[in-house]
């Protein structure tokens, strides 16, 4: 059984806005899954539907084999959710926030577990400061600690690295990897394509539809590689497929004569591949 199975999931807000237009998706257990899309693509809407705080207008959703609405009591015990932008009690300390959300789950040894969660996000020394005195990135980290204090099997993180500096961002991703190694399934939304390459698999969401869903490596293989060859002072460009074996083939076909003075290879970035896939569909 997959961790998430979606079939034709739809969500309308009122009559005009259709935020999700039939999303099909599957997420395997224990993987880091990236949901990538621009502003307004429907990432938050999809995550809210999966954690059972939003009623979809159509389609079917299963999370850990459970219905997000009908089985929400059980589901909520087993998942963690970090909303977009830190949702915390500003007057309380980081530790108190983590303890409050942990207490909902009846976590045993709560104080120690809350400290442990804050240690995990490297915020131990500021644990007792009121949240409103923390920086934006620190609030994000407290918010992440709140989502994982009860050690859920599955984590839903809505743009966890938005507004986080590059150094901290790579720390976050290292932390996600560490969680995944421990068997946690992570469902992470982002609008940054370079973060997608850090996931096991990604879905590109655009205007409420999944454009592609695959591993970043497979998606990259759908891109093009340009072979640039300089011979007798003349630049020549050849476009080959995205697969490494194509490159060898092209070189064989070309034959490396003495007159060739330089060979270089340019490959599409994930972003370019995705844009060209979108272009093909349009």
């Amino acid at each position: 059984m997959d961790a998430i199975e979606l079939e034709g999931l739809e969500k309308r807000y009122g009559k005009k806005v259709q935020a999700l237009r039939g999303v099909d998706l599957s997420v395997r257990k224990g993987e880091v899954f990236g949901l990538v899309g621009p502003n307004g693509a429907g990432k938050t809407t999809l995550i809210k539907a999966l954690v059972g705080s939003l009623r979809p207008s159509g389609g079917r959703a299963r999370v850990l084999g459970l219905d997000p609405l009908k089985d929400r009591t059980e589901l909520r015990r087993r998942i963690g959710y970090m909303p977009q932008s830190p949702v915390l009690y500003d007057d309380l300390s980081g530790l108190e926030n983590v303890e409050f959300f942990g207490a909902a789950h009846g976590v045993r040894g709560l104080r120690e577990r809350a400290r442990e969660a804050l240690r995990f996000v490297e915020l131990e020394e500021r644990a007792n400061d009121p949240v409103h005195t923390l920086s934006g990135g620190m609030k994000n980290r407290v918010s992440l600690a709140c989502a994982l204090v009860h050690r859920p099997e599955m984590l839903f993180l809505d743009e966890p690295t938005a507004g986080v500096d590059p150094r901290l961002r790579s720390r976050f991703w290292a932390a996600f990897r560490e969680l995944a190694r421990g068997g946690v399934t992570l469902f992470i939304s982002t609008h940054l394509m370079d973060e997608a390459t850090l996931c096991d698999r990604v879905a590109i969401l655009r205007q409420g539809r999944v454009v592609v869903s695959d591993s970043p490596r497979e998606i990259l293989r759908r891109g093009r590689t340009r072979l640039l060859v300089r011979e007798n002072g003349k630049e020549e460009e050849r476009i080959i497929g995205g697969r490494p074996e194509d490159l060898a083939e092209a070189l064989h076909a070309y034959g490396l004569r003495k007159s060739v003075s330089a060979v270089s290879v340019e490959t599409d970035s994930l972003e370019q591949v995705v844009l060209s896939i979108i272009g093909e569909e349009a």
Partner: protein
Amino acid sequence: MRRTFVVGRRVLRQLRRNPRFLVLTIVGPLVIVYFLKLFFDTFPEGFDTGRYAVPAAAFIVHFMAFLLCAIALVQERTAGTMERMFVNGFRRAEVIGGYVLGYLGLATFQAAVALGEVLWLFELDYDADVLASLFAVVWLLAIASVMLGIFVSTFARRESQVFPFIPLIAFPSVFLSGLLMEPDELPRWAELLGRAFPVFYANEVIQEMIEPGGALADVWTNFAVLAGYGAALLVLASLTLREVE
């Protein structure tokens, strides 16, 4: 039940961390009661100020408790902490129960302070049993007000949507609940409308108790109605509070 206390403790802790807010919610009613005193001082000697002063204190407590609780809850919705609570497994009844517990302390304190000031400023001298029932009824009113705040908040998505409810609750309470005159002098329909507001029942008890020779036995049903009013709102609120958007 355990989680209800968890929410209650958190609400109380937030109140404690906000000394400015706490002081204002206590000092605010005190200042208003003092203005009331200045107002009544302009009246001729021998005017029965007690008939108005005690219900006025009750109304102030009612209004503050209602407003603070409604706004605090709507803020949880707009901030997203309400959603986060639900996704973490808190249930509706636990969130509501927690708020009742948290604000109960504040409401009790407000009731004691406002009533105490009125008695002192207006030099009202009542027997201990009258004082006890006055405090009991203002306290019960404060609880019903907290419930009313919770109930109203479930109809608002944003803070701005609470504001239209404020005059809708405040003005009928002032004009139809007998604070200013006897409700039975009103047209029948207006009198019935007045009974939809908890201040009506509190005022009935207050008027009876401050009369010389007033007996609790004559108005105990109002106590019961007030308690039932709070309980009914609690049940309604737990039906109208949305866990899923």
